[in-house]
């Protein structure tokens, strides 16, 4: 029983789970198990329900990025004709396959690939390259933009549900084993619980002062990305929520002293810089609390109808709705977390999340009155990161916020 074991911290437990997961994957083929590559936002529950191990190349790429390997990996494939403006995840991954360099000794080759385009289109093309390379089938899980037309939404859910059944057939063909829907219900129930706890954790950023920053969220989201659908993920988030409650919230301890600016972050993080950014911001009394990105895994599953609930949750992720709705999702975070600043990162690596940033800024600024900083860089490739320029711009932005709050205090401004 878990209670009798020496009590681990959430951080230790997360490390243990990650090691176990990658160990398991490494030996999957020896144990007659199949490896499926999948994308972070995808119905991975189908794999867990069918005893296929889902592997997330994106996740592995984040490790390569934080280990600052991306420039070298990318250059190795640029020599093969890939361009440096592709997604840094894709470049890191293709580079890993070229140089066989990885901070964790690599990930196993795929027997099957699933790419869900609710997240982005790039993944489907990147996985297409891998599918050719390993001669493994690729299933594109197609989620048309979840536009706000009632009829379209009904039809989209029907289409996505039909694809879940097709996907199940593909898995049965792959493994020669019948799919078990009762097991799927069980897995979705684990996902439901993990998602609720994960969201509870993220929402702790609404406390004042906030006990967590987005950097904590980014580290702790890994488990729900690759282990949702397992009981361990539920245990982990329960432990995490309890821990933050006991050690921070109940004592009123904030993640930074003198919290003054509670910031929203638009887009994925600049993975290789986030510690530096945390420190820089903290010196101004500013902390980034949340983003739509970390909320992409705050699902709301209903296990009684597992196929429908998977379709509904994965089709409606923030990156697959219309801009107005996405802005509303962000505005909801501004309200719930009492945010008073907005850093908008235009990520060269991610067209899918970046491209309508100016329009998004216009909506958010109009509704909140909070000025936004838009700056351009790359989430994974330091060659596209200009230290002094970004630092100067962030500093100037925080000074603007200071000026605004000074004027407000003096009654010079509404």
């Amino acid at each position: 029983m878990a209670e009798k074991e020496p009590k681990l911290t959430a951080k230790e437990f997360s490390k243990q789970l990650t090691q176990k997961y990658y160990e398991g994957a490494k030996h999957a083929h020896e144990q007659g198990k199949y490896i499926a590559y999948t994308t972070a936002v995808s119905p991975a529950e189908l794999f867990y329900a069918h005893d296929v191990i889902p592997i997330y190349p994106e996740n592995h790429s984040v490790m390569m990025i934080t280990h600052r390997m991306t420039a070298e990996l990318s250059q190795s494939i640029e020599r093969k004709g890939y361009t440096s403006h592709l997604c840094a995840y894709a470049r890191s991954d293709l580079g890993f396959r070229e140089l066989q360099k990885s901070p964790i000794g690599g990930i196993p080759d795929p027997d099957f690939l699933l790419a869900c385009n609710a997240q982005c289109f790039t993944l489907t093309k990147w996985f297409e390259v891998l599918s050719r390379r390993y001669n493994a089938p690729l299933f594109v899980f197609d989620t048309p933009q979840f536009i706000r037309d009632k009829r379209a939404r009904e039809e989209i859910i029907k289409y996505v549900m039909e694809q879940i059944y097709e996907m199940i057939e593909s898995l049965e063909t792959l493994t020669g084993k019948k799919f078990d829907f009762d097991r799927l219900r069980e897995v979705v129930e684990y996902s439901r619980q993990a998602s609720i706890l994960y969201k509870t954790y993220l929402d702790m950023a609404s406390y004042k002062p906030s006990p967590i920053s987005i950097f904590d969220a980014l580290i702790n989201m890994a488990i729900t990305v690759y282990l949702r659908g397992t009981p361990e993920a539920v245990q982990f988030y329960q432990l995490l929520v309890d821990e933050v409650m006991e050690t921070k919230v109940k004592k009123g301890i904030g993640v930074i002293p003198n919290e003054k600016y509670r910031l929203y972050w638009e887009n994925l993080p600049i993975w290789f810089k986030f510690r530096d950014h945390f420190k820089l911001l903290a010196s101004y009394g500013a902390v980034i609390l949340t983003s739509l990105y970390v909320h992409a895994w705050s699902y709301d599953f209903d296990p009684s109808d597992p196929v429908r609930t998977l379709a509904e949750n994965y089709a409606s992720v923030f990156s697959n709705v219309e801009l107005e709705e996405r802005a509303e999702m962000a505005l909801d975070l501004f309200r719930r977390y009492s945010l008073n600043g907005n850093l908008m990162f235009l990520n060269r690596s991610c067209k899918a999340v970046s491209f309508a940033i100016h329009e998004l800024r216009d909506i958010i600024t109009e509704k909140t009155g909070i000025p936004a900083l838009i700056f351009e860089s790359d989430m994974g490739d330091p060659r596209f990161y200009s230290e002094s320029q970004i630092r100067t711009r962030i500093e100037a932005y925080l000074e603007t916020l200071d000026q605004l709050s000074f004027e407000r205090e003096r009654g010079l401004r509404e």
Partner: protein
Amino acid sequence: MNQKEILEKVQAIAQDPFPYLKGKKTEGRKILGSPLADVPSELIHAAGFLPVTILGTNRPIVKASAHLPDNACSLSRSNLELVLNYQREDFDGFVFPQVCDTTQHLSDIWKMTIPSEFFASFLIPRQVDRTSARHWFYAETQRLKSQLEGFSGSPITDDALRKSIRLYNEARTLLREIYQAKRMSPTLISNRQLFDLIRAFCFMAPEDIIPLLQTLVSDLDAEKSGEEKKRVIRISLSGIVVEPAELFGLLDELKVSVVADDLIVGSRMIDYDVPEHEDLIMALTERHFSKSPFSPIRDVGTRLYDHLLRRVEETKAEGIIYFHIKFCESQDYDLPDMKSVMRERKIPMIVLETEYQTAAKAQTKTRLEAFIESLYGEQIHG
């Protein structure tokens, strides 16, 4: 009109369709624009509107940069620029397909920056290899039909749709005949002329272009006498679009003849007719799935190359000129594997990076010249 006059007229429309479209508007026809690709023109036409493919502009980018980052593909930027800045009043509405991240965002940006009487998203399936894609295309086409009916205020009858389908099929058939005539006698019509005809077909009502094409076909038939004496290098083009269109003129200057292509504004637009079917929406669906591959749409992983290889083989093309739209991510992912397949098969291929706003003619010309010289060399030594 004689052949020369017809070609001049159609080419003028291909280069600047807006005087023609203004004329249609004064006749009371509403213009619905759609970027590439796969919007069923037949349905829009049957609803009484004029479907027009939006093919960008070569004029300077002034306003689009404020809305799209500089790593958005040249096609999306010039499409937005064309309508936002230059020809806004010429469109009454839009039917907007989404095929990739850029087009999905462009759709959002478009709705916010270019208010219009009518905007319908046409969410084509981004996979074609499973049954669900067919069901989805059918449902989405039905939904588009209802939206068009809502805008026009009257139902699209089967008779009207059948008539539109026949017209589009006829125009496509005629364009194929002209293309085929060029394959047989490469100098009969220039590359620029052939592709301007296809381009004009993107803008013109089929009932307007058909009589012109009919005259051209009969004139070309009459001309097609005797064997070609001079050796002409036979080329296949590959990609999505060839822009700016002067590049076709460059191919003419270099005395090569296009005998095949897998372009979206090319063979993929004219090679596939709507089959006879009692259920006309099903007929449009069938046509969609009969088409050749399109880079952003998931297909069997190697079909893009297999298809091109087959076309090259069938038409005895001697090399491939691949047009890569700057910052088209889909093509970025295809290219390295595509190049290695062609290398393995020993098919000469050159990749030209293109941008709507710059022809970079001198450099492109030098590279193409070298490529074509090498093809002559292959012929001599091979």
